């Protein structure tokens, strides 16, 4: 057999190393179980406060107010899902910032495996473990506070849509992390993303409660694919065409944004690595 250097790594190789990375990320997150527990406690506390807020709001139907527009069953489940996803994204941007600015990246570039695939896969692995832990906390919270769980169909959909939403979150933070190629700190980009999650992603309240133009803008943003679309599934009271349409909209938005963000990240990554190779950092 002739030994020619592989020109492009095979897709199967990439998938294999991504899987290994995800497994490593999941293992690390599990090993830090006290942190995981602390995160679940924080989640429950946040949910307690936010639920109390929305419960109070929905009991007051002031003339001219928006309270009438709130779903009858309240926003507990909606807020529960947005925070469930938002709190489960590992801080991959800080990892990238450290590696890019600390010089660890250069050593990685010498290895055959892609640094970026490895890091994103690790973050995704950690994200899935966090989703599981926080998800259990959410169900316990609902039971303890005497609230109904979402119907089984919705729970089933969340198991699919939740991790996808998490992937979009990881990709958004990866974008923030890649800004370290051009700026010393990723914090400014990170703050912008956080604000967008509130404004366009429905982190504070369903975007349908916002002015129409803002809601429309939000619906077509990756921020909604990350938080609003998975959360709004819980506002459907029963299985049926409504839920099916919602689920399809969520999946379509998530898949489209995963591909778009992935492509964007690949382009920015190339440009960033070129900067490193030119010695501009």
């Amino acid at each position, binding site marked *: 057999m002739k030994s020619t250097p592989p020109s492009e790594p095979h897709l199967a190789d990439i998938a294999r190393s991504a899987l290994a990375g995800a497994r490593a990320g999941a293992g690390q997150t599990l090993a830090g179980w*006290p942190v995981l527990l*602390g995160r679940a406690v*924080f989640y429950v*506390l*946040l949910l*307690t*406060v936010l639920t*109390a*807020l929305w*419960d*109070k*709001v929905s*009991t*007051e139907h*002031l003339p*001219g*107010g*928006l*309270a009438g527009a709130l779903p009858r069953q309240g926003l507990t489940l909606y807020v529960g899902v947005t925070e469930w996803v938002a709190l489960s994204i590992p801080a991959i941007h800080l990892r990238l910032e450290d590696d890019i600015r600390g010089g660890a990246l250069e050593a990685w570039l010498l290895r055959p495996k892609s640094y970026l695939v490895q890091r994103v896969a690790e973050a995704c692995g950690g994200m899935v473990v966090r989703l599981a832990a926080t998800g259990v906390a959410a169900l316990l919270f609902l039971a303890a506070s005497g609230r109904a769980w979402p119907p089984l169909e919705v729970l089933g959909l969340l198991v699919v849509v939740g991790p996808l939403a998490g992937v979009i979150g990881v990709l958004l933070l990866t974008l923030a992390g890649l800004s370290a190629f051009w700026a010393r700190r990723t*914090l*400014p980009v990170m*703050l912008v993303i956080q*604000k967008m999650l*509130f404004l366009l992603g429905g982190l*504070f*309240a369903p975007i349908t*409660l*916002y002015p129409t133009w803002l809601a429309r803008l939000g619906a077509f943003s990756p921020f909604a694919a990350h938080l609003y679309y998975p959360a709004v599934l819980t506002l459907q009271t029963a299985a049926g065409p409504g839920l099916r349409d919602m689920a399809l909209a969520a999946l379509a938005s998530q898949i489209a944004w995963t591909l778009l963000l992935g492509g964007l990240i690949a382009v920015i990554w190339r440009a960033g690595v070129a900067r490193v190779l030119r010695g501009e950092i």
Partner: protein
Amino acid sequence: MARLSLPALYARTARAAIAGSAADRANLTLQVFGMLINNGFMLTLWVLFFAGFHSVGGWRLRDMALLTGLIYAIAGVAGVAFGGYRDMAATILNGEIDALLTQPRPVLARLLSRDSLPIAWGDLGTGLAILIAFAGLTWRDLPALAFGWTCGLIVYLSAAVTFASLAFWVGGARSLARDLTDFMILMSTYPGSIYSGASRAIAYTLLPAGFVVLTPVAFLRRPSLESAAMEAAAVIVYAALAAGVFHFGLTRYRRGASPLGAG
């Protein structure tokens, strides 16, 4: 030799910490403006919220503005003039109080004045701006505001010192103390009317958001001897608790029973 009073000495060391935090101008400016924008955004969200819902259990936008302005102003003064509270648990765990123990003045005062947080200026700025522009206060409210601000600040710092003092007992207290302090702030940034049952109990005991902002806000809206007395009592109780826990913790540390290394 004239001995400087403790407040005067505190003022000098705190001023030194502030000067130190301002040494890197670019960093200071960045952090202050970042915080201003961040806090301004949160206020905007509440403005949008109240534009839609008008009221939460009797709380309206100007009440929310008073609450937000007050907690930012409290966190601002705490961070600027008592900034050592933020990393106090880590300071204890690192054994950095040894040097302070060889010096003649009170250790707690030295710990609080050893640091000043640049972002706290941003909090203070937004807090004041919100109080002036949105809280619907008049000049006549000034004494009540000063009372509420001071009392809230003392309760906030006392709780934070109590949390940090856990470091004398627990090795992992660094993040625990920070988390508890952050939870307290989190609970202080929502309308008080939403708390009932267990969450209300927590807000008036473990994470005293109630005494940091809710009672002061109530007092500002409807000044009464009763709410003033309640707040004053809370100040005494929480300050005494903090002093007591810190004192016992320090005694324990000096006996060598704290979870720290020894040389």
